[in-house]
């Protein structure tokens, strides 16, 4: 897959301002801002980054008893604790954990902006919430600290960096490789009888599907509830359903907005994507509509569904001892679509967790140094290795680590790495929660037949317009155009 690291590198303030330059006046304003002197890069080397960070933190602590409080989503302790224990051993600075439910951490961080309680120093919000959190002022702009301590090349091997930045400012390191990946039953695909039956019925070979249409065909083919076999374990609960539609829609060749922030989601492609999503629901296993994240892992792990969609965390479970499908899976990126005869893939980075520093923290510099330490190549590898957590590979180094390879399997990691490199970004705009909640509610309403797909998307588009107007169309347009420029070239060149 084409390496899109170039897009990932070009997301600092300079490139944000450049792409935000709309018209000569805006460009002039942007150019004048570029004349700000940027602080020089830190002197340390990448090889010593963790020891340098630890030493600097120890000096800053200066013999005081300092405790860093980390607000972390439930289930992530397995990834954080091994790193934090080493940190404490290296610096003498203790770490205290404040666990919050997985789906509520962004709210908790934002409430901190309101309450000003100063109850944590570091947090791990979901990446898609960074814009709102940055706008609220609760996050420290880490540009200055990064310039002081981050060695050259530190972020080079972080494959997906888009969520680290908002409006060109750096807010925190991505620490989880949450690109959507597909899972298929290899033994069902490789069954000669199934292959013959499929080829006879559809005239094409049975293989890992390239397009959503092909996938939907295979789901119908493998759905045999009378034999206890089901087509798919896709998510249909409200928290997750919109993500599938997002990928299906992009694969039809469209951005969600035009350059002037007019929603395109309710065009023919959007409606078709939603119709296809609703049609695929016929092939779900029983209980899929009510199941959340971990129930999905268990259900697919029972082995009676053909396909599933998920992340590296899904694979950690499915490749584990509790899984009934260990060794029976093959993998693929999320299917694409044929756009003007070309196969367009739009893998999607739709979750992720970023280490951020609270603006209310009294130890901001030490807190930043912890994040620098934790996301360093060596320590992040240790974090990802832990089978008890859900941080997935996100640096080049992770894909070469023998323990990580054993945990995930080489076949999965190849697909995961390719998906990470080609990922389209999430909708990193102010009000992301609002845009996506409206989309979620209407997509689910269409899925259960409460609304016609066209009506659902028209309602969503109308609401999106209202949201954009209320938040400020101008600022949103600037950020949207910048975000568009961060789409991987392979996808961007085919989307309109």
């Amino acid at each position: 897959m084409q390496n899109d690291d170039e897009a990932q590198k070009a997301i600092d303030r300079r490139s944000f301002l450049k792409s935000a330059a709309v018209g000569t006046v805006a460009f002039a304003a942007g150019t004048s801002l570029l004349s700000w002197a940027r602080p020089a890069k830190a002197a340390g080397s990448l090889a010593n980054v963790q020891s340098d960070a630890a030493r600097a933190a120890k000096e800053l602590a200066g013999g005081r008893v300092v405790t860093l409080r980390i607000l972390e989503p439930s289930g992530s302790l397995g990834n954080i604790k091994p790193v934090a224990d080493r940190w404490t051993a290296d610096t003498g600075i203790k770490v205290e954990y404040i666990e919050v439910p997985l789906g509520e951490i962004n709210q908790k961080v934002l409430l901190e902006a309101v309450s000003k309680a100063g109850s944590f120093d570091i947090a791990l919000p979901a990446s898609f919430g960074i814009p709102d959190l940055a706008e609220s002022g609760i996050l420290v702009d880490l540009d200055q600290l990064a310039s002081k301590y981050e060695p050259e090349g530190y972020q080079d091997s972080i494959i997906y960096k888009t969520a680290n930045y908002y409006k060109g400012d750096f807010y925190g390191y991505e620490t989880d490789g949450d690109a959507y990946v597909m899972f298929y039953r290899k033994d069902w695909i490789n069954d000669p009888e199934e292959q013959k039956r499929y080829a006879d019925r559809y005239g094409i070979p049975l293989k890992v599907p390239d397009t959503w249409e092909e996938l939907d065909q295979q789901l119908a083919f493998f759905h045999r509830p009378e034999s206890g076999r089901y087509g798919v374990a896709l998510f249909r609960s409200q928290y997750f359903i919109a993500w599938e539609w997002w990928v299906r829609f992009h694969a039809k060749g469209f951005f969600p907005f035009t350059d002037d922030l007019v929603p395109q989601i309710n065009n023919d492609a959007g409606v078709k994507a939603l119709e296809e999503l609703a049609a695929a629901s016929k092939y779900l296993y029983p209980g899929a509509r009510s199941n959340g994240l971990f129930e999905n892992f268990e259900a697919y792990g029972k082995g009676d569904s053909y396909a599933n969609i998920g992340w590296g965390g899904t694979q950690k479970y499915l490749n584990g001892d509790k899984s009934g499908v260990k060794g029976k899976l093959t993998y693929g990126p999320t299917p694409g679509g044929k756009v003007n005869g070309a196969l367009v893939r739009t893998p999607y980075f739709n979750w992720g967790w970023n280490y951020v520093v609270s603006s209310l923290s009294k130890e901001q510099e030490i807190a930043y140094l912890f994040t620098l330490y934790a996301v360093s190549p060596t320590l992040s590898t240790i974090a990802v290795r832990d089978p008890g957590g859900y941080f997935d590979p996100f640096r080049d180094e992770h894909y070469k680590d023998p323990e990580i390879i054993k945990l995930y399997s080489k076949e999965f990691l190849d697909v995961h790495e390719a998906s990470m490199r080609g990922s389209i970004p999430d909708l990193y705009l102010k009000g992301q929660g609002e845009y996506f909640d409206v989309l979620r509610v209407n997509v689910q309403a269409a899925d259960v037949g409460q609304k016609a797909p066209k009506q659902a998307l028209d309602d969503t588009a109308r609401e999106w317009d209202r949201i954009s107007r209320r938040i400020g169309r101008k600022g949103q347009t600037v950020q949207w155009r910048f975000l568009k420029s961060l789409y991987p070239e392979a996808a961007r060149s085919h989307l309109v």
Partner: protein
Amino acid sequence: MERHDTVQLETQCRPLPRIARLPFSIVLVLPAQLIMLLVVVVPTLIVVWLSLTDWQPTDNIPWFKAEFSWFWNFYDLLPDERFVGAVLRTLFVVALCVSTELVLAVALALLFLDEWPWRKVAVSVIILPMMVVPVDAANAFFMLFNDHGPINQLLSLVLDRPVEYAWLADPHWALLPIIFAEVWQWTPLMFLLVLTAFLNVPRNQWRAALGLGATPAQAFFRVVLPLSLPVMLVAVLIRAIETFKIFDVIYILTRGGPGATTESISMYMYNGAFVYFRMGYVAAAALLVLFVVVSVCLALFKPLQKHYE
């Protein structure tokens, strides 16, 4: 002059501080009342202020510096289909749950009027659901109504064919498990209040009615029920207010879905405040809802007032 005469003279000349002149009963409750004022009135005033702004935490300005936007939030709320739907849906759930609880409570209370063996144990068993944490009760109903849950298994036995109905994902039936959970958990409270009301009806009036030739049903409807009405109305009012705030059951069972078909007004405001962070808009919604709730309460109070006149 004697010492006590001097003291008496000084006391007569120096006026007492105002607080010392208050009745002692008022002085005792004053601190609690002041705290209540602080805890209730001040936040209400803040909500009123927020409802007249479009403040969001993501604006990065303190709430008291939010831009004043007059009544635009109220103006936007009234045509908001999701808000209106949430209010109407909640009123429907309140009406159905409270009326079901009342009927069941009356039926149960009639069974427990007289002494019978194991009556006290039976009362303890009946009130057990009330002791369960609402979230745990909701989780239990989530499992009951799951596609492979006991409800579907029972239906499979009865209908003699496999039933794997997705109750919680059906826009037409998703409210049913929610109503079941609510009625199961809170009928015991209604039962206790109604039983208390029935037990406090003077027995001689009831016996007199029966002695004069009334049937038990006539005695119940003409003697017991009218005398129990004030307590029952209070029970209905309490349950109506509590049910109006329904949240945990919905959050656990459906999160307001599928779509927004089970979204109560509390879920709507939760989403508005903690997903959208539109605090100003939600504050306006909260005030409108307060108006609705107060109107309903006043309507329920009318029969009570008539009873005491």
